[in-house]
């Protein structure tokens, strides 16, 4: 869409494309760093949760948005990361070793599920990850010896260099730091050969293969990296909830994660963040207007998932670019004002394409 004119290949590799973008990221970072000093504990806690979901969203975005592999079982990776981290902390490992190790363990699971599913694409992959997710969910519930079953698993308060990570503020800052690191990692992957290969696979497997990309290796790495990042989010999630319950990592959570990616906008890191913001704000918004809705609608159980469902349906039908796509259009409209042309943002007419052969 709108991009500055490219005058060198270096420009393509920049992390922030324009000076204005660089400045706005810096302002955002400073603002996020001082928020806990001025806002109440509740908001800080909620923002910490948002960061955790944003991390998971970035992880899934690498897989679904950039490699084109859809996973309906990412809650399992979140769960594996959370339990691995909590168990290692309980064994006395320090936080700074345990969290990355939880990520590595989850990445190993990701490769393990990724390798047999390499031959599948689209539909079969979605179904098999769904099955994998529900198997892991059942294992977490039934393996009492390891996970404590339905009694749950208490998460120990960790220390980093003598500083206790506790309460909303501790989770906030650790999640923020991990989120920034993860985004930086994701952006670096995307501008490295690996990221280019992932995008090529998303757009056409056959042409990627004929360009010399090893499909199996790239897909497994994508699965591993995505699962690993989600595992990191899981480790932080353990601190966020403080007491792990095995049934919280179910299909509904997997679908929420995919919804983050879809509503935010496929194929952009911004989209993952926007999606996470939306995902965490909607329940708050519902809670605020709950009592004012007519016909006792606000008291209906299942209001929240159905609203998520409705918004998901509307986004896919009318704005496949998600929030990020809408944002780009708005930006374009402002920049070209008053010369905006309707055709610039009109979707191309598309026809049914067979995915039986890819």
């Amino acid at each position, binding site marked *: 869409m709108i991009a500055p004119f490219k005058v060198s290949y270096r420009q393509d590799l920049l992390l922030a494309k324009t000076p204005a973008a660089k400045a706005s990221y810096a302002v955002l970072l400073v603002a996020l760093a001082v928020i806990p000093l001025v806002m109440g504990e509740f908001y800080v806690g909620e923002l910490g949760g948002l960061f955790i979901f944003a991390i998971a969203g970035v992880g899934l975005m690498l897989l679904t948005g950039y490699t*084109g592999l859809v996973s309906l079982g990412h809650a399992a990776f979140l769960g594996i990361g959370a339990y691995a981290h909590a168990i290692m902390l309980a064994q006395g490992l320090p936080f700074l070793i345990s969290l990355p190790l939880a990520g590595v363990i989850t990445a190993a699971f990701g490769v393990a599920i990724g390798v047999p599913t390499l031959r599948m694409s689209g539909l*079969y992959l979605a179904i098999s990850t769904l099955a*994998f997710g529900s198997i892991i969910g059942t294992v977490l519930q039934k393996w009492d010896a390891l996970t404590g079953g339905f009694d749950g698993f208490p998460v120990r308060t960790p220390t980093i260099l003598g500083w206790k990570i506790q309460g909303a503020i501790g989770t906030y800052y650790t999640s923020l730091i991990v989120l920034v690191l993860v985004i930086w990692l994701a952006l670096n992957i995307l501008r490295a050969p690996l990221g280019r290969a992932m995008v090529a696979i998303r757009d056409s497997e*056959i042409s990627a293969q004929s360009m010399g990309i090893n499909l199996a290796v790239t897909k497994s790495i994508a699965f591993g990296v995505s699962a690993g990042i989600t595992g990191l989010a899981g480790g932080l999630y353990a601190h966020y909830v403080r007491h792990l319950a095995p049934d919280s990592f179910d299909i509904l959570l997997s*679908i929420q994660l995919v919804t983050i990616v879809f509503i935010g906008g496929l194929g952009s890191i911004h989209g993952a963040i926007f999606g996470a913001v939306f995902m965490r704000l909607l329940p708050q918004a519902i809670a605020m207007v709950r009592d004012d809705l007519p016909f006792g609608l606000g008291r209906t159980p299942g209001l929240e998932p159905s609203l998520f*469902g409705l918004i998901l349906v509307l986004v896919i039908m009318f704005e496949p670019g998600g929030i990020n796509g809408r944002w780009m259009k708005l930006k374009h409209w402002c920049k070209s004002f008053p010369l905006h042309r309707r055709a610039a943002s009109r979707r191309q007419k598309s026809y049914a394409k067979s*995915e039986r052969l890819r």
Partner: protein
Amino acid sequence: MESVVGLLQLIINGAATGCIYGLIALGFVLIYKATEMVNFAQGEIMMLGGFAAYTFVGIFGMNYWVGSGLAVLATAAFGYLLDAVVLRRVIGQPQFAVVMLTLGLAFIFRAGAGIAWGYDSVAFVTPFTNSIVRFGDTLVLGADNLSIIFGTLVLCGVLYLFFSRTRLGIAMQASSQNQLAAYYMGIPVRRVFSLIWAISAGVAAVAAILLVPVQMVDVNSGIVGFKAFAAAVLGGFGSIPGALVGGVVVGVVEQLAGFYLPTGFQEVTSNIVLLAVLILRPQGLFGQVIRKRV
């Protein structure tokens, strides 16, 4: 001898549950073959069919057969509208966008059913409730399970005749095989697709009605849809007899796993079968391998 009879009873109960899986899987396969869309809301459509039957038979007090027929028709009409209003608009979008779309629809249906019919389990009396059939001295089977198996067989026969003998059925086969050629032959492909959705929703409603004597209808009964995936994949996702055979196999294996293996295994059996098939034989039992020519 006792154990043989017990085993036979287990297998027949499993086959009955499997028939339900098979019917839902049949709905997946019909839609997938025709439009390459996968309807993750199939289980929820079945749930709506069950509630429709409950409305006609349980609330309005209609005759079981009349009420059930009306429920099937109503659900089929719902399926037609679903395609005409929602799914037709997303043609050309990637397959997983459609997957997410139908998942979203599933949530909406669940909440809608909760608002309309409440969150309690409901049931109504059918001719097959609580009656048993004896074969010889030892083998005792519930009429409910037998009615499921018998109903499935009849429905399959009807569908087979429909697809092989009627003009509309052949038009449907043609549109599934090659959309463009079907257009050239003057088949109104879009309406045919909507009709396929209607048939698939109707089949789901039949499954729901057959299931009523065994299991009460409630908002969460759509979960069965996920087990039906295992059936569809086992059969090769795209093969109609495969879906039914797959359903019966999954149902029987699940029943036996529940009896012979420790607790917890029954719930994941269908998923393990699914993953095993996808890893060992991705084309399923009856599927065909297609390769792309470049």
